[in-house]
């Protein structure tokens, strides 16, 4: 039966592809076809049809490799997974209808063919979904790593003075990272003053404030001072309304004033030099 299906597909390839493209264009929710060039659509369609036939004829290994290549390609093209499963269903449907019309499938062997078609489409669908989710998982984990690298680094700006700029949302995981990097950095750079810059933190709620207070307490324990800088006016107002007590902190509106203050604490200042 596999042979019969493959022969039918190969003999009627052009018609099947044309029908299939029409059906996929009719899928209103899926713009994947509309945004691609005609040539690209034709090429990808032929590849897809080839893949569908290859699963009937070739050894599992060859087919598996082709499938992976194709799935990776469509992921790159940005075709959605619903689009791909629809593509498989439509393709099988067209072949089935076509074979019924020419009489290869008739009431006597219909049961066998239905079974055969199910066995044909199901594994393709499964491995397509598998490849898709693998590709997404990889993207997400890479982004997570990229985010972590951006997360929290302590930068020594002057002798004994270090700055940690915080940009973006602070969640529990990041809060832990901030605490670790802060303490490691203070010891490593022998900092006496650490400036936590929250200019880039969009929302300071009680949890974020709590983590900042804990981090500052810990910094005090290793013998340095912690200063909170970059408090925007609207953040200042919400902190006050929330009733968060930051009285134990030195805070400034900008990093620049924080640095000046830090230098003052370590008995230094920046002066302009007049050229002689």
């Amino acid at each position: 039966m596999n042979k019969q299906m493959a022969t039918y597909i190969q003999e009627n390839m052009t018609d099947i592809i044309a029908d299939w493209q029409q059906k996929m264009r009719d899928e209103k929710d899926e713009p994947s076809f509309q945004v691609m060039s005609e040539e690209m659509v034709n090429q990808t369609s032929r590849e897809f049809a080839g893949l569908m036939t290859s699963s009937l004829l070739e050894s599992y290994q060859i087919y598996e490799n082709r499938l992976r290549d194709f799935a990776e390609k469509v992921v790159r093209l940005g075709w959605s997974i619903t689009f791909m499963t629809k593509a498989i269903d439509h393709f099988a449907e067209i072949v089935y209808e076509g074979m019924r019309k020419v009489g290869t499938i008739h009431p006597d062997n219909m049961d066998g063919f239905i079974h055969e078609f199910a066995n044909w489409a199901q594994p393709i669908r499964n491995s397509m979904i598998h490849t898709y989710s693998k590709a997404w998982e990889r993207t997400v984990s890479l982004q997570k790593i990229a985010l972590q690298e951006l997360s929290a680094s302590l930068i020594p700006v002057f002798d004994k003075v270090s700055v940690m700029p915080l940009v973006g949302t602070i969640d529990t995981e990041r809060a832990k990272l901030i605490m670790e990097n802060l303490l490691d950095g203070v010891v490593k750079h022998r900092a006496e003053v650490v400036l936590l810059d929250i200019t880039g933190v969009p929302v300071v709620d009680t949890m974020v404030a709590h983590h900042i207070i804990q981090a500052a307490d810990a910094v005090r324990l290793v013998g340095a001072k912690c200063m909170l800088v970059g408090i925007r006016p609207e953040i200042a107002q919400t902190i006050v309304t929330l009733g968060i007590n930051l009285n134990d902190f030195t805070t400034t509106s900008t990093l620049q004033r924080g640095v000046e203050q830090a230098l003052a604490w370590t008995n230094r200042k920046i002066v302009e030099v007049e050229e002689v």
Partner: protein
Amino acid sequence: MSDQSSVEILTEWDIVAARQLGRNVAKELGFGTVDQARITTAISELARNIYLYAGQGRIEIQQLAENGMKGILIIAADSGPGIPDVRKVMEDGFTTSGGLGAGLPGVKRLMDDFKIETIQGEGTDIRATKWLR
């Protein structure tokens, strides 16, 4: 008359999604930056409470228009364990999670109207409104 949209809270990152939704609606309604910060902070607190204590729930954001006034309504609903003593959680500094204990009383101060309904074992429904002045 109201327009609404909602975010399911299942993971910590959904808090960010809820906040973003609230900020967009607030901006659209014409709230200033200070009120935008208040509204997003309130959403952040309520969403975090759902995540921490109920495990899952939803944040709904509605646009209000009543008597010529415009406003934003935040609904935080969950089917969690409920709050045993509402009066206690509305006190500043009361916490069961080792936090600051400023969350709910803070939200009440950040917003104009604040209503809390909770049934033990069935869930909690908090509604907070901010009017555009």
